[in-house]
């Protein structure tokens, strides 16, 4: 099955049809997507600022990333589930949407650089992260921001 065929299948599945045919379905899922975004975005911002040593000074860099793990996973899961449901509303519309493709790439890049920053950070025994780890975590936050902006552009294109 090609990716395009998978999109066609999802769009014509019962879940895609249900969302498309309901008056408030899409809007309700969008609301969940937005609520989860508020929690995920602020969680990422707070843990990044902490890793950079800007807030929660005196705690080991990366500590808040660990402490916020539950909130991050829960909000990310809610975003992915609601995101897939929004996608199911019209997969073929999003399949050809450049902003949507860019958004997926940005999410992948953000997750990758974020993981990389912690890998580099934990290797050090310093009270402060090495500059490369800091750069990577800042890049990760920027890519998340880009994914958010791209998400808005998806609706405009």
């Amino acid at each position, binding site marked *: 099955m090609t990716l395009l065929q998978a999109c066609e299948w999802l769009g014509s599945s019962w879940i895609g049809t249900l969302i498309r045919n309901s008056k*408030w379905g899409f*809007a309700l899922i*969008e*609301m969940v997507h*937005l*609520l989860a*975004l*508020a*929690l*995920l*975005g*602020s*969680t990422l*911002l*707070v843990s990044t*600022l902490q890793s950079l040593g800007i*807030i*929660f000074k005196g*705690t080991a860099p990366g500590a*808040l990333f660990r*402490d*916020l793990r*539950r*909130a991050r996973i829960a909000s990310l899961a809610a975003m992915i589930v609601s995101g897939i449901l929004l996608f199911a509303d019209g997969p073929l519309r999003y399949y050809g949407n450049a902003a949507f493709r860019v958004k997926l790439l940005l999410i992948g890049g953000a997750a990758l650089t974020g993981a990389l920053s912690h890998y580099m950070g934990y290797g050090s025994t310093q009270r402060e992260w090495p500059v490369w780890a800091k750069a990577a975590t800042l890049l990760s936050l920027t890519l998340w*921001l880009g994914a*958010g*902006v791209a998400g*808005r*552009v998806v609706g*405009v294109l």
Partner: protein
Amino acid sequence: MTLLQYACQWLADTVIGTRIRESDNLFSVIETIHVLGIVLTAGTIAIVDLRILGLLLNRHSVNAVLVPLVKIAWRGFALMALTGLLLFWSEADKLYFNLAFRLKLLLLLAAGVNQWIFHMAYDADIAASSALDAVAWRTRVSAILSLSLWIGIIVLGRAIAYL
């Protein structure tokens, strides 16, 4: 036509209102920044509320979480209010009739009052005791109210476009 409705009509007809409304991308750009403001405000407030309720960041004291995050929330609020004003400006005549918008403003007001009462109570609690981990019941009630109100604000904000 009431005075408020007249004022909204006038606002939408001004150069700035018209410029935002008729531009290809300006409204979407402002909307995107508005959402970023919401993330900075509602998200950080939610983290503080969840800490007060003992659901998050329990290794850190309430005050250690509250102080830096409220600072971020205020900056986010400034961004949200400014962009929200611009969005309203361009559609004031229509939003006057929008039920979701009216309810949203009421909830925003309620969230503000709740925040104000919370701060007075919280400051009094701090002055009375240094044991911040024993969170007073009124602080917990305030946190639940705050979480509910902000969820309502975001939901209604999205509903505006559908009404």
